Protein backbone atom coordinates (compact mmCIF):
# COMPACT_ATOMS: atom_id res chain seq x y z
CA UNK A 1 0.00 0.00 0.00
CA UNK A 2 1.31 3.45 -0.88
CA UNK A 3 2.28 5.81 1.94
CA UNK A 4 -0.52 8.07 3.08
CA UNK A 5 -0.10 11.61 1.81
CA UNK A 6 -0.97 14.71 3.80
CA UNK A 7 -4.55 14.48 2.56
CA UNK A 8 -4.73 10.89 3.82
CA UNK A 9 -4.28 11.97 7.41
CA UNK A 10 -6.85 12.89 10.01
CA UNK A 11 -6.40 15.35 12.84
CA UNK A 12 -6.82 14.46 16.50
CA UNK A 13 -8.55 17.54 17.89
CA UNK A 14 -9.34 16.15 21.31
CA UNK A 15 -8.52 13.28 23.65
CA UNK A 16 -10.13 12.27 26.92
CA UNK A 17 -10.25 9.47 29.43
CA UNK A 18 -12.14 8.37 32.51
CA UNK A 19 -9.57 7.01 34.97
CA UNK A 20 -9.13 3.23 34.99
CA UNK A 21 -10.12 1.36 38.15
CA UNK A 22 -12.59 -1.15 39.46
CA UNK A 23 -15.36 1.36 39.93
CA UNK A 24 -18.28 -1.04 39.41
CA UNK A 25 -20.48 1.52 37.68
CA UNK A 26 -22.20 1.38 34.29
CA UNK A 27 -19.73 1.48 31.39
CA UNK A 28 -21.75 4.25 29.72
CA UNK A 29 -20.77 6.60 32.54
CA UNK A 30 -17.06 6.14 31.80
CA UNK A 31 -17.60 6.51 28.07
CA UNK A 32 -19.52 9.74 28.44
CA UNK A 33 -16.99 11.20 30.90
CA UNK A 34 -14.23 10.43 28.38
CA UNK A 35 -16.27 11.81 25.45
CA UNK A 36 -17.04 15.06 27.27
CA UNK A 37 -13.36 15.43 28.18
CA UNK A 38 -12.32 14.87 24.55
CA UNK A 39 -14.90 17.36 23.27
CA UNK A 40 -13.75 19.97 25.80
CA UNK A 41 -10.14 19.29 24.79
CA UNK A 42 -11.13 19.84 21.15
CA UNK A 43 -13.10 22.97 21.92
CA UNK A 44 -16.18 21.48 20.25
CA UNK A 45 -19.76 20.73 21.28
CA UNK A 46 -21.39 17.30 21.08
CA UNK A 47 -23.75 18.70 18.47
CA UNK A 48 -20.74 19.48 16.23
CA UNK A 49 -20.11 15.74 15.92
CA UNK A 50 -21.40 14.27 12.66
CA UNK A 51 -20.32 10.67 13.17
CA UNK A 52 -20.06 8.73 16.44
CA UNK A 53 -18.04 5.52 16.43
CA UNK A 54 -18.41 3.17 19.42
CA UNK A 55 -16.08 0.34 20.44
CA UNK A 56 -18.24 -2.46 21.81
CA UNK A 57 -18.13 -4.33 25.10
CA UNK A 58 -19.51 -7.87 25.12
CA UNK A 59 -19.88 -8.11 28.89
CA UNK A 60 -22.55 -5.45 29.42
CA UNK A 61 -25.57 -6.72 27.51
CA UNK A 62 -27.26 -5.22 24.47
CA UNK A 63 -26.18 -1.60 25.16
CA UNK A 64 -22.59 -2.83 24.86
CA UNK A 65 -23.21 -4.44 21.45
CA UNK A 66 -24.55 -1.16 20.06
CA UNK A 67 -22.16 1.07 21.95
CA UNK A 68 -22.13 3.85 19.36
CA UNK A 69 -25.88 4.33 19.74
CA UNK A 70 -25.68 3.86 23.50
CA UNK A 71 -23.17 6.69 23.81
CA UNK A 72 -25.08 8.86 21.32
CA UNK A 73 -28.31 8.48 23.30
CA UNK A 74 -26.54 9.22 26.57
CA UNK A 75 -25.03 12.38 25.09
CA UNK A 76 -28.50 13.31 23.79
CA UNK A 77 -29.83 12.22 20.37
CA UNK A 78 -28.40 14.67 17.88
CA UNK A 79 -28.97 12.99 14.54
CA UNK A 80 -25.30 12.06 14.18
CA UNK A 81 -24.57 9.00 12.08
CA UNK A 82 -23.44 6.02 14.08
CA UNK A 83 -21.31 2.86 13.97
CA UNK A 84 -20.45 0.21 16.56
CA UNK A 85 -17.48 -2.12 16.23
CA UNK A 86 -16.23 -5.20 18.02
CA UNK A 87 -12.75 -6.57 17.34
CA UNK A 88 -11.65 -8.04 20.69
CA UNK A 89 -8.69 -6.06 22.10
CA UNK A 90 -8.48 -4.10 18.83
CA UNK A 91 -12.09 -2.86 19.08
CA UNK A 92 -10.98 0.68 19.88
CA UNK A 93 -8.73 0.80 16.81
CA UNK A 94 -11.50 -0.57 14.62
CA UNK A 95 -13.75 2.21 15.89
CA UNK A 96 -11.03 4.74 15.05
CA UNK A 97 -10.68 3.13 11.62
CA UNK A 98 -14.41 3.55 10.94
CA UNK A 99 -14.28 7.22 11.87
CA UNK A 100 -11.09 7.79 9.88
CA UNK A 101 -12.60 6.22 6.79
CA UNK A 102 -15.70 8.44 7.04
CA UNK A 103 -13.50 11.53 7.31
CA UNK A 104 -11.10 10.53 4.52
CA UNK A 105 -14.03 9.69 2.25
CA UNK A 106 -15.35 13.20 2.80
CA UNK A 107 -18.55 11.90 4.38
CA UNK A 108 -18.03 13.89 7.58
CA UNK A 109 -15.71 16.51 9.06
CA UNK A 110 -15.88 15.70 12.75
CA UNK A 111 -16.16 12.27 14.39
CA UNK A 112 -16.24 11.12 18.00
CA UNK A 113 -14.72 7.73 18.93
CA UNK A 114 -15.64 6.23 22.31
CA UNK A 115 -14.84 2.96 24.07
CA UNK A 116 -15.62 1.97 27.66
CA UNK A 117 -15.97 -1.16 29.74
CA UNK A 118 -17.06 -2.49 33.09
CA UNK A 119 -15.35 -5.80 33.85
CA UNK A 120 -16.05 -8.65 36.26
CA UNK A 121 -13.50 -9.72 38.86
CA UNK A 122 -10.80 -12.29 38.13
CA UNK A 123 -9.85 -14.21 34.99
CA UNK A 124 -11.76 -13.31 31.86
CA UNK A 125 -14.22 -16.15 31.31
CA UNK A 126 -16.22 -16.81 28.15
CA UNK A 127 -19.64 -15.23 27.97
CA UNK A 128 -22.39 -17.44 29.44
CA UNK A 129 -24.19 -20.48 28.06
CA UNK A 130 -22.99 -23.88 26.86
CA UNK A 131 -21.55 -23.40 23.39
CA UNK A 132 -19.77 -26.50 22.17
CA UNK A 133 -18.97 -24.94 18.80
CA UNK A 134 -17.24 -21.85 20.24
CA UNK A 135 -13.48 -22.31 20.64
CA UNK A 136 -13.46 -19.63 23.34
CA UNK A 137 -15.90 -21.69 25.45
CA UNK A 138 -14.21 -24.98 24.63
CA UNK A 139 -10.68 -23.91 25.57
CA UNK A 140 -11.86 -23.16 29.10
CA UNK A 141 -13.93 -26.34 29.28
CA UNK A 142 -11.50 -28.85 27.77
CA UNK A 143 -8.11 -27.36 28.67
CA UNK A 144 -8.69 -24.93 31.51
CA UNK A 145 -6.70 -22.56 29.30
CA UNK A 146 -7.12 -18.98 30.54
CA UNK A 147 -5.66 -15.91 28.82
CA UNK A 148 -2.53 -16.03 31.04
CA UNK A 149 -1.97 -19.61 29.82
CA UNK A 150 -1.25 -18.27 26.35
CA UNK A 151 0.83 -15.32 27.67
CA UNK A 152 2.90 -17.81 29.66
CA UNK A 153 3.52 -20.04 26.62
CA UNK A 154 5.05 -17.04 24.83
CA UNK A 155 7.06 -16.06 27.93
CA UNK A 156 8.53 -19.54 28.37
CA UNK A 157 9.33 -19.73 24.67
CA UNK A 158 11.18 -16.41 24.96
CA UNK A 159 13.24 -17.71 27.87
CA UNK A 160 14.18 -20.82 25.92
CA UNK A 161 14.94 -19.07 22.62
CA UNK A 162 16.57 -15.85 23.79
CA UNK A 163 17.65 -16.45 27.36
CA UNK A 164 15.15 -14.04 28.91
CA UNK A 165 15.08 -14.37 32.68
CA UNK A 166 12.50 -13.87 35.40
CA UNK A 167 14.53 -10.80 36.39
CA UNK A 168 13.97 -9.32 32.92
CA UNK A 169 10.23 -9.86 33.16
CA UNK A 170 10.19 -8.27 36.61
CA UNK A 171 12.21 -5.31 35.30
CA UNK A 172 9.51 -4.59 32.71
CA UNK A 173 6.93 -4.39 35.50
CA UNK A 174 9.18 -2.14 37.60
CA UNK A 175 9.65 0.23 34.65
CA UNK A 176 5.97 0.40 33.77
CA UNK A 177 4.90 0.85 37.40
CA UNK A 178 7.28 3.81 37.62
CA UNK A 179 5.72 5.33 34.49
CA UNK A 180 2.17 4.63 35.67
CA UNK A 181 2.80 6.20 39.05
CA UNK A 182 2.89 9.58 37.27
CA UNK A 183 -0.29 9.01 35.26
CA UNK A 184 -3.54 10.27 36.82
CA UNK A 185 -5.60 7.95 34.60
CA UNK A 186 -3.76 4.77 35.63
CA UNK A 187 -5.39 2.32 38.04
CA UNK A 188 -2.17 1.23 39.79
CA UNK A 189 -0.09 4.21 40.80
CA UNK A 190 2.43 2.71 43.20
CA UNK A 191 5.99 1.94 42.24
CA UNK A 192 7.08 -1.65 42.83
CA UNK A 193 10.47 -3.27 43.31
CA UNK A 194 11.80 -6.31 41.47
CA UNK A 195 11.75 -8.14 44.80
CA UNK A 196 8.02 -7.44 45.19
CA UNK A 197 7.33 -8.66 41.66
CA UNK A 198 9.32 -11.84 42.17
CA UNK A 199 7.63 -12.46 45.53
CA UNK A 200 4.13 -12.21 44.04
CA UNK A 201 2.34 -15.53 43.51
CA UNK A 202 3.06 -17.57 40.39
CA UNK A 203 -0.10 -17.67 38.26
CA UNK A 204 1.02 -19.36 35.05
CA UNK A 205 4.69 -20.31 35.21
CA UNK A 206 6.88 -18.27 34.54
CA UNK A 207 4.44 -15.36 34.97
CA UNK A 208 3.56 -13.95 38.37
CA UNK A 209 0.52 -12.03 39.55
CA UNK A 210 2.19 -8.60 39.23
CA UNK A 211 3.27 -9.41 35.66
CA UNK A 212 -0.18 -10.20 34.29
CA UNK A 213 -2.56 -7.51 33.18
CA UNK A 214 -5.66 -7.09 35.35
CA UNK A 215 -9.18 -6.45 34.07
CA UNK A 216 -10.37 -2.90 34.66
CA UNK A 217 -13.17 -0.41 34.21
CA UNK A 218 -12.36 2.67 32.16
CA UNK A 219 -13.23 4.80 29.18
CA UNK A 220 -11.36 6.67 26.44
CA UNK A 221 -12.43 8.95 23.60
CA UNK A 222 -11.03 10.87 20.65
CA UNK A 223 -12.40 13.72 18.57
CA UNK A 224 -11.11 13.33 15.01
CA UNK A 225 -11.52 15.68 12.08
CA UNK A 226 -10.36 16.28 8.55
CA UNK A 227 -7.11 18.25 8.35
CA UNK A 228 -8.99 20.97 6.52
CA UNK A 229 -11.54 21.31 9.31
CA UNK A 230 -8.67 21.33 11.79
CA UNK A 231 -7.01 24.24 9.98
CA UNK A 232 -10.24 26.22 10.05
CA UNK A 233 -10.97 25.31 13.66
CA UNK A 234 -7.53 25.50 15.24
CA UNK A 235 -5.96 28.22 13.14
CA UNK A 236 -2.18 28.23 13.43
CA UNK A 237 -1.94 25.36 15.92
CA UNK A 238 -1.32 22.21 13.93
CA UNK A 239 -2.93 19.34 15.79
CA UNK A 240 -1.43 15.88 16.15
CA UNK A 241 -2.44 13.63 13.28
CA UNK A 242 -3.18 9.96 12.71
CA UNK A 243 -0.79 9.09 9.87
CA UNK A 244 -1.65 5.40 9.56
CA UNK A 245 -3.81 2.72 11.08
CA UNK A 246 -3.42 -1.02 10.56
CA UNK A 247 -5.93 -3.72 11.48
CA UNK A 248 -4.39 -6.52 9.41
CA UNK A 249 -5.35 -10.16 9.91
CA UNK A 250 -2.77 -12.94 10.08
CA UNK A 251 -1.49 -14.65 6.94
CA UNK A 252 -1.80 -18.39 6.49
CA UNK A 253 -0.17 -20.41 7.87
CA UNK A 254 -0.36 -18.70 11.26
CA UNK A 255 2.15 -20.91 13.07
CA UNK A 256 2.11 -19.28 16.52
CA UNK A 257 -0.62 -20.53 18.84
CA UNK A 258 -3.17 -17.78 19.42
CA UNK A 259 -6.08 -17.31 21.79
CA UNK A 260 -8.55 -18.98 21.81
CA UNK A 261 -7.35 -21.73 19.48
CA UNK A 262 -6.45 -25.35 20.27
CA UNK A 263 -3.96 -25.56 17.43
CA UNK A 264 -2.04 -23.43 14.95
CA UNK A 265 -2.58 -23.58 11.23
CA UNK A 266 -0.81 -26.45 9.53
CA UNK A 267 2.15 -25.54 7.33
CA UNK A 268 2.21 -29.06 5.85
CA UNK A 269 0.85 -28.08 2.46
CA UNK A 270 2.55 -24.73 1.95
CA UNK A 271 5.87 -25.01 3.78
CA UNK A 272 7.15 -22.78 6.54
CA UNK A 273 6.30 -19.12 6.48
CA UNK A 274 8.99 -16.72 5.43
CA UNK A 275 6.80 -13.71 6.23
CA UNK A 276 7.13 -11.55 9.29
CA UNK A 277 4.59 -13.36 11.49
CA UNK A 278 1.35 -11.86 12.68
CA UNK A 279 2.50 -9.57 15.50
CA UNK A 280 5.23 -8.07 13.32
CA UNK A 281 2.87 -7.56 10.41
CA UNK A 282 0.50 -5.47 12.54
CA UNK A 283 2.97 -2.61 13.08
CA UNK A 284 4.83 -3.03 9.83
CA UNK A 285 1.70 -2.53 7.79
CA UNK A 286 1.18 0.74 9.65
CA UNK A 287 4.76 1.84 8.98
CA UNK A 288 4.30 1.08 5.31
CA UNK A 289 1.09 3.06 5.16
CA UNK A 290 2.70 6.04 6.91
CA UNK A 291 5.81 5.86 4.74
CA UNK A 292 8.09 5.76 7.77
CA UNK A 293 10.11 3.13 9.62
CA UNK A 294 10.77 2.12 13.23
CA UNK A 295 13.87 4.36 13.23
CA UNK A 296 11.54 7.38 13.02
CA UNK A 297 9.62 6.42 16.18
CA UNK A 298 10.23 8.37 19.39
CA UNK A 299 7.68 6.77 21.69
CA UNK A 300 5.59 3.58 21.67
CA UNK A 301 2.57 2.21 23.49
CA UNK A 302 2.43 -1.59 23.21
CA UNK A 303 0.04 -4.20 24.54
CA UNK A 304 1.80 -5.62 27.59
CA UNK A 305 -0.77 -8.26 28.48
CA UNK A 306 2.19 -9.70 30.37
CA UNK A 307 5.55 -8.22 31.29
CA UNK A 308 7.21 -10.78 29.01
CA UNK A 309 5.02 -9.90 26.05
CA UNK A 310 6.29 -6.31 26.13
CA UNK A 311 9.71 -7.68 25.17
CA UNK A 312 8.22 -9.52 22.18
CA UNK A 313 6.67 -6.24 21.06
CA UNK A 314 10.04 -4.39 21.06
CA UNK A 315 11.06 -6.76 18.29
CA UNK A 316 7.70 -6.93 16.57
CA UNK A 317 7.44 -3.15 16.18
CA UNK A 318 11.02 -3.08 14.91
CA UNK A 319 12.82 -1.33 17.79
CA UNK A 320 15.45 -4.10 17.69
CA UNK A 321 16.21 -7.46 16.12
CA UNK A 322 14.81 -10.74 17.44
CA UNK A 323 16.56 -11.69 20.65
CA UNK A 324 17.74 -8.16 21.45
CA UNK A 325 14.78 -6.93 23.52
CA UNK A 326 16.36 -7.87 26.84
CA UNK A 327 19.42 -5.78 26.03
CA UNK A 328 17.22 -2.80 25.15
CA UNK A 329 15.44 -3.16 28.47
CA UNK A 330 18.59 -3.70 30.54
CA UNK A 331 20.24 -0.63 28.91
CA UNK A 332 17.29 1.50 30.00
CA UNK A 333 16.47 2.42 26.40
CA UNK A 334 12.74 1.80 26.85
CA UNK A 335 12.27 3.77 30.08
CA UNK A 336 11.23 7.42 30.03
CA UNK A 337 14.53 9.28 29.64
CA UNK A 338 15.90 6.45 27.48
CA UNK A 339 16.41 6.28 23.73
CA UNK A 340 12.97 4.93 22.78
CA UNK A 341 10.54 4.92 25.72
CA UNK A 342 7.87 2.21 25.63
CA UNK A 343 4.62 2.46 27.58
CA UNK A 344 5.24 5.86 29.19
CA UNK A 345 1.56 5.69 30.25
CA UNK A 346 2.41 2.73 32.46
CA UNK A 347 0.86 0.35 29.94
CA UNK A 348 -1.62 -2.40 30.73
CA UNK A 349 0.63 -3.12 33.67
CA UNK A 350 -0.59 0.08 35.34
CA UNK A 351 -4.03 0.27 33.76
CA UNK A 352 -5.40 -3.24 33.51
CA UNK A 353 -7.49 -3.99 30.48
CA UNK A 354 -10.75 -2.19 29.71
CA UNK A 355 -10.96 -3.92 26.35
CA UNK A 356 -12.88 -1.55 24.03
CA UNK A 357 -11.20 1.51 25.53
CA UNK A 358 -7.65 0.24 25.44
CA UNK A 359 -6.57 0.86 21.84
CA UNK A 360 -8.14 4.34 22.09
CA UNK A 361 -6.29 5.00 25.36
CA UNK A 362 -3.01 4.13 23.64
CA UNK A 363 -3.66 6.92 21.12
CA UNK A 364 -4.67 9.35 23.89
CA UNK A 365 -1.30 8.81 25.56
CA UNK A 366 0.65 9.35 22.34
CA UNK A 367 -1.27 12.57 21.67
CA UNK A 368 -0.43 13.88 25.14
CA UNK A 369 3.18 12.85 24.61
CA UNK A 370 3.46 14.54 21.21
CA UNK A 371 1.80 17.68 22.54
CA UNK A 372 4.20 17.77 25.50
CA UNK A 373 1.34 17.41 28.01
CA UNK A 374 2.38 14.15 29.70
CA UNK A 375 3.33 15.63 33.06
CA UNK A 376 5.71 13.49 35.09
CA UNK A 377 6.22 10.94 32.31
CA UNK A 378 7.01 13.18 29.34
CA UNK A 379 9.15 11.75 26.56
CA UNK A 380 11.31 14.61 25.31
CA UNK A 381 11.34 15.50 21.66
CA UNK A 382 9.14 12.72 20.29
CA UNK A 383 7.49 13.61 16.97
CA UNK A 384 6.25 10.16 15.95
CA UNK A 385 4.52 7.59 18.13
CA UNK A 386 3.33 4.07 17.40
CA UNK A 387 0.80 1.84 19.15
CA UNK A 388 0.56 -1.93 18.89
CA UNK A 389 -2.16 -4.19 20.14
CA UNK A 390 -3.32 -7.76 19.71
CA UNK A 391 -6.36 -9.71 20.83
CA UNK A 392 -8.31 -12.87 20.17
CA UNK A 393 -9.42 -14.35 16.87
CA UNK A 394 -6.79 -12.71 14.66
CA UNK A 395 -7.45 -9.15 15.73
CA UNK A 396 -4.68 -6.62 16.22
CA UNK A 397 -3.99 -2.99 15.51
CA UNK A 398 -1.31 -0.38 15.15
CA UNK A 399 -1.78 3.38 14.95
CA UNK A 400 0.92 5.86 13.96
CA UNK A 401 0.54 9.35 15.34
CA UNK A 402 2.70 12.28 14.24
CA UNK A 403 3.08 15.95 15.01
Amino acid at each position, binding site marked *: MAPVAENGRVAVLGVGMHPWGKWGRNFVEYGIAAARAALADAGLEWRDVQFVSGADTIRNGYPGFVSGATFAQALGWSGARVSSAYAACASGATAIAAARAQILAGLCDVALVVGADTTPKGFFAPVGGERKDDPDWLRFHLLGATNPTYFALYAR*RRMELFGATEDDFAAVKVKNARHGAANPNARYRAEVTAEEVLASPM*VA*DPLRLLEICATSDGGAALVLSSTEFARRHAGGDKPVQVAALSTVTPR*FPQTVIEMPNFATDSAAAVGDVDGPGFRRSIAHSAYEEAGIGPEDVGVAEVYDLSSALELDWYEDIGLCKAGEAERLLRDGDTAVGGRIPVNPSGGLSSFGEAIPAQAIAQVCELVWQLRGQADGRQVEGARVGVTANQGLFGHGSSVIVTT
Partner: protein
Amino acid sequence: MAGAKTRVPAVEGWFTLDDDAPALLGSRCKRCGTYAFPKETFFCRNPACESTEFDEVELSRRGKVWSYTDARYQPPAPYVAANPYEPFCIAAVELAEEKMVVMGQVVPGIGVEELSVGTEVDLVTDVLYEDEDHQYLVWKWKPVTASSGGGAGG
Protein backbone atom coordinates in the same frame (compact mmCIF):
# COMPACT_ATOMS: atom_id res chain seq x y z
CA MET B 1 -14.86 -47.10 42.41
CA ALA B 2 -14.06 -45.08 39.34
CA GLY B 3 -13.99 -48.26 37.28
CA ALA B 4 -17.74 -48.64 37.56
CA LYS B 5 -18.41 -45.38 35.79
CA THR B 6 -19.15 -45.09 32.10
CA ARG B 7 -16.29 -43.45 30.24
CA VAL B 8 -17.35 -40.90 27.67
CA PRO B 9 -15.42 -38.25 25.75
CA ALA B 10 -15.82 -34.71 27.08
CA VAL B 11 -16.17 -33.61 23.47
CA GLU B 12 -17.53 -35.75 20.66
CA GLY B 13 -15.34 -36.72 17.71
CA TRP B 14 -12.11 -34.93 18.65
CA PHE B 15 -10.08 -38.04 19.56
CA THR B 16 -10.28 -41.83 19.46
CA LEU B 17 -11.01 -43.82 22.59
CA ASP B 18 -8.37 -46.45 21.89
CA ASP B 19 -6.91 -47.24 25.35
CA ASP B 20 -3.45 -48.22 24.12
CA ALA B 21 -2.89 -45.71 21.34
CA PRO B 22 -5.45 -42.92 21.34
CA ALA B 23 -5.12 -40.24 18.67
CA LEU B 24 -6.49 -36.80 17.98
CA LEU B 25 -8.91 -36.72 15.07
CA GLY B 26 -8.08 -33.96 12.63
CA SER B 27 -8.87 -33.28 9.03
CA ARG B 28 -6.71 -33.23 5.92
CA CYS B 29 -7.81 -31.31 2.86
CA LYS B 30 -8.39 -33.66 -0.07
CA ARG B 31 -6.94 -31.14 -2.51
CA CYS B 32 -3.99 -29.37 -0.82
CA GLY B 33 -3.20 -31.62 2.14
CA THR B 34 -3.59 -28.95 4.85
CA TYR B 35 -4.34 -30.44 8.26
CA ALA B 36 -6.64 -28.91 10.85
CA PHE B 37 -7.51 -29.60 14.47
CA PRO B 38 -10.27 -29.63 15.46
CA LYS B 39 -11.56 -31.04 12.17
CA GLU B 40 -12.35 -28.64 9.37
CA THR B 41 -15.70 -29.48 7.82
CA PHE B 42 -16.60 -26.47 5.67
CA PHE B 43 -13.76 -24.65 3.95
CA CYS B 44 -10.02 -25.29 3.70
CA ARG B 45 -7.95 -22.85 5.78
CA ASN B 46 -5.42 -22.42 2.98
CA PRO B 47 -6.37 -19.20 1.16
CA ALA B 48 -4.98 -20.64 -2.08
CA CYS B 49 -7.33 -23.63 -1.88
CA GLU B 50 -11.08 -23.63 -2.45
CA SER B 51 -11.66 -27.22 -1.41
CA THR B 52 -14.60 -28.20 0.77
CA GLU B 53 -13.72 -31.89 1.02
CA PHE B 54 -11.66 -33.41 3.80
CA ASP B 55 -10.51 -36.75 5.09
CA GLU B 56 -10.75 -37.46 8.80
CA VAL B 57 -7.25 -38.44 9.91
CA GLU B 58 -5.57 -39.51 13.13
CA LEU B 59 -2.86 -36.97 13.99
CA SER B 60 0.65 -37.99 15.05
CA ARG B 61 0.61 -39.40 18.57
CA ARG B 62 4.09 -38.15 19.42
CA GLY B 63 5.36 -34.59 19.31
CA LYS B 64 7.83 -32.16 20.86
CA VAL B 65 6.94 -29.47 23.38
CA TRP B 66 6.93 -26.01 21.71
CA SER B 67 6.23 -24.30 25.02
CA TYR B 68 4.55 -25.05 28.34
CA THR B 69 3.09 -23.52 31.47
CA ASP B 70 0.86 -24.42 34.38
CA ALA B 71 -2.41 -23.27 35.95
CA ARG B 72 -1.74 -22.45 39.58
CA TYR B 73 -5.21 -20.99 40.10
CA GLN B 74 -8.49 -22.69 39.33
CA PRO B 75 -9.70 -21.69 35.85
CA PRO B 76 -13.23 -20.28 35.73
CA ALA B 77 -16.27 -22.22 34.48
CA PRO B 78 -16.94 -23.88 32.11
CA TYR B 79 -13.80 -25.63 33.40
CA VAL B 80 -14.93 -28.31 35.85
CA ALA B 81 -12.27 -28.40 38.55
CA ALA B 82 -11.58 -31.14 41.06
CA ASN B 83 -12.32 -30.24 44.68
CA PRO B 84 -9.83 -29.51 46.12
CA TYR B 85 -8.27 -27.93 43.05
CA GLU B 86 -5.10 -29.56 41.74
CA PRO B 87 -2.85 -27.40 39.53
CA PHE B 88 -1.88 -28.94 36.20
CA CYS B 89 0.49 -28.20 33.33
CA ILE B 90 -0.48 -27.24 29.80
CA ALA B 91 1.78 -27.86 26.81
CA ALA B 92 1.72 -26.64 23.21
CA VAL B 93 3.17 -29.51 21.20
CA GLU B 94 4.69 -29.48 17.70
CA LEU B 95 3.65 -32.30 15.39
CA ALA B 96 6.34 -32.77 12.76
CA GLU B 97 4.31 -34.36 9.97
CA GLU B 98 1.34 -32.05 10.32
CA LYS B 99 3.59 -28.98 10.83
CA MET B 100 1.26 -27.62 13.46
CA VAL B 101 1.18 -27.03 17.22
CA VAL B 102 -1.59 -28.56 19.34
CA MET B 103 -2.35 -27.65 22.94
CA GLY B 104 -3.31 -30.07 25.67
CA GLN B 105 -3.14 -30.54 29.41
CA VAL B 106 -0.16 -32.55 30.62
CA VAL B 107 -0.96 -35.67 32.64
CA PRO B 108 -1.29 -35.20 36.43
CA GLY B 109 1.86 -35.56 38.45
CA ILE B 110 4.08 -33.75 35.95
CA GLY B 111 5.30 -30.29 37.00
CA VAL B 112 6.86 -27.56 34.89
CA GLU B 113 10.30 -28.56 36.18
CA GLU B 114 9.91 -31.86 34.31
CA LEU B 115 9.21 -30.13 30.99
CA SER B 116 11.31 -28.14 28.58
CA VAL B 117 11.05 -26.93 25.01
CA GLY B 118 11.75 -30.01 22.91
CA THR B 119 10.56 -32.59 25.47
CA GLU B 120 9.06 -35.58 23.61
CA VAL B 121 5.48 -36.32 24.59
CA ASP B 122 2.85 -38.89 23.63
CA LEU B 123 -0.89 -38.47 23.42
CA VAL B 124 -2.97 -40.25 26.06
CA THR B 125 -6.56 -39.98 27.23
CA ASP B 126 -7.31 -39.14 30.83
CA VAL B 127 -10.20 -38.08 33.02
CA LEU B 128 -11.04 -34.38 32.72
CA TYR B 129 -13.88 -34.47 35.28
CA GLU B 130 -16.46 -36.89 36.66
CA ASP B 131 -20.03 -37.00 37.82
CA GLU B 132 -21.85 -39.81 39.65
CA ASP B 133 -22.18 -42.04 36.62
CA HIS B 134 -19.56 -40.87 34.14
CA GLN B 135 -15.92 -40.16 33.66
CA TYR B 136 -15.47 -37.48 31.00
CA LEU B 137 -12.28 -38.04 29.04
CA VAL B 138 -9.98 -35.64 27.25
CA TRP B 139 -6.64 -35.91 25.46
CA LYS B 140 -3.51 -35.06 27.42
CA TRP B 141 0.22 -35.03 26.71
CA LYS B 142 2.52 -37.35 28.62
CA PRO B 143 6.33 -37.09 28.54
CA VAL B 144 7.79 -40.16 26.88
CA THR B 145 10.14 -40.62 29.80
CA ALA B 146 7.43 -40.26 32.50
CA SER B 147 6.85 -43.47 34.41
CA SER B 148 3.78 -42.31 36.30
CA GLY B 149 0.73 -40.17 35.84
CA GLY B 150 -2.23 -40.12 33.51
CA GLY B 151 -3.77 -42.56 31.13
CA ALA B 152 -7.45 -43.37 31.46
CA GLY B 153 -6.61 -47.02 31.92
CA GLY B 154 -4.04 -46.36 34.64
